[in-house]
């Protein structure tokens, strides 16, 4: 068990990332308020990206911007996770905008943000 905790402490960024991911996942799954669900989604994504970026960090190295023509790979951190997270951030802002637009429309129609209530109201109407 102490070894387990020690490992967790060594991988502290990943540990934090996983906890944030879990909290975000919980909010996305459980919250009935749509806005909080969306914030939860963003937390979940941030947790994921933190995890991914932590995989690319190498202690004591610099950001992968080559200065003075010194292209020695052992001096810079891994650029792959950074690039992937960049893609991920854009994806998550797109999804957030889409969900928020849906929220606006739903609130306009049903005057509530509670997804369960909205579902019940929607079921009563004829499509």
């Amino acid at each position, binding site marked *: 068990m102490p070894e387990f905790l020690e490992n967790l402490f060594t991988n502290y960024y990943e540990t934090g990332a996983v906890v944030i991911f879990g909290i975000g996942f919980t909010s996305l799954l459980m919250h009935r308020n749509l806005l909080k669900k969306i914030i939860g989604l963003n937390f979940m994504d941030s947790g994921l990206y933190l995890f991914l970026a932590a995989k690319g960090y190498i202690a004591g190295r610099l950001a992968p911007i*080559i200065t003075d023509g010194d292209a020695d790979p052992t001096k*810079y951190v891994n650029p792959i996770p950074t690039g992937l997270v960049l893609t991920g951030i854009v994806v998550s802002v797109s999804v957030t905008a889409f969900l928020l637009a849906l929220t606006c429309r739903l609130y306009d129609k049903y005057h509530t943000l509670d997804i369960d209530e909205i579902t019940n109201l929607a079921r009563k109407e004829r499509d």
Partner: protein
Amino acid sequence: MKNKGALSRLWSFAEYGSFREEEFTLSPSDERHIDTDTPENRWLTTVQNSERSVGARAASWFSRRGVEIFQRLYRVAAVFICFTLIGVLLAVVAFLPPFGGADNPAVNEVPERYVAGAVEETGATNAVAGMISAYRGFDTLGEAHVLFVAACSVMALLRIDGPARRHGCLPDPEMTGEDMDFEPNSDLILRKAAKILVPLSFIFGLYVILNGTSSPGGGFSGGALMGAGVILNSVAFGFSRTERFFGERVYHIVKTACLTVYALLMAYFIYMGANGIYDHVWLGVPGGIVSGGLILPINIAVGFEVACTMYCFYALFRKGGL
């Protein structure tokens, strides 16, 4: 059959926290249709009848007691599932290679070449820019289109066509008098600050885009900065002032042009690369503005697309149109 009913209720409840199927079967509109007792429908009615009476009783019982019990149960179950998820993931983290280690599996020949070959092969001194727009350019093409898909969806949801157009979703502009959009001369501090900040964010955004090959940033971040500048402009001075230079027509032209140019550049690059044809792209001076070969035009195209999309999101949310 009834067990299945209860089971499926449980499942649907477990996933969404509400009972769905029974309610649907019993929704008044459907009942009305089945109850039209024409001879042609009789088979259907008999099929449904026996089940429905039992189902109705069960449903009413559920709606009285079950909902509360299951709601509580569902919360407990969900919390349990989430804690299990976190626990499992923590266990995984404990077994992963140590953070920041120089001999982790992720440190292999792939990132090595991205760093070592960045200047010679892509002409970009920022290895991240070289990686996302040259080595793995196809991913980034997809990413730009994710943003485009989202912009189209938001437009389909929130754009208001027809006479109500000008006032947006807010039905009467006088009613929301405090609303800044419709009362441009609202806040002195904001306007004074915007006078300085708007040009600044434009310039900074352009700087980030143009220097994306040799310093942190690139199309996406620079575009977001420029988009923020346009948004700030319309917050401080009202939409009418932004519309002078940025209306729906401009938006469509810029976005289409940027995405088409991007796709064509990428197609050229991929086609040449895959067929082993030498492409006559000058890589430029590493570290300068004109560097990175195709990365610079790609960054510019992406940057303007992102700026347009960000403003488009905001305008659609605030007034239901560009």
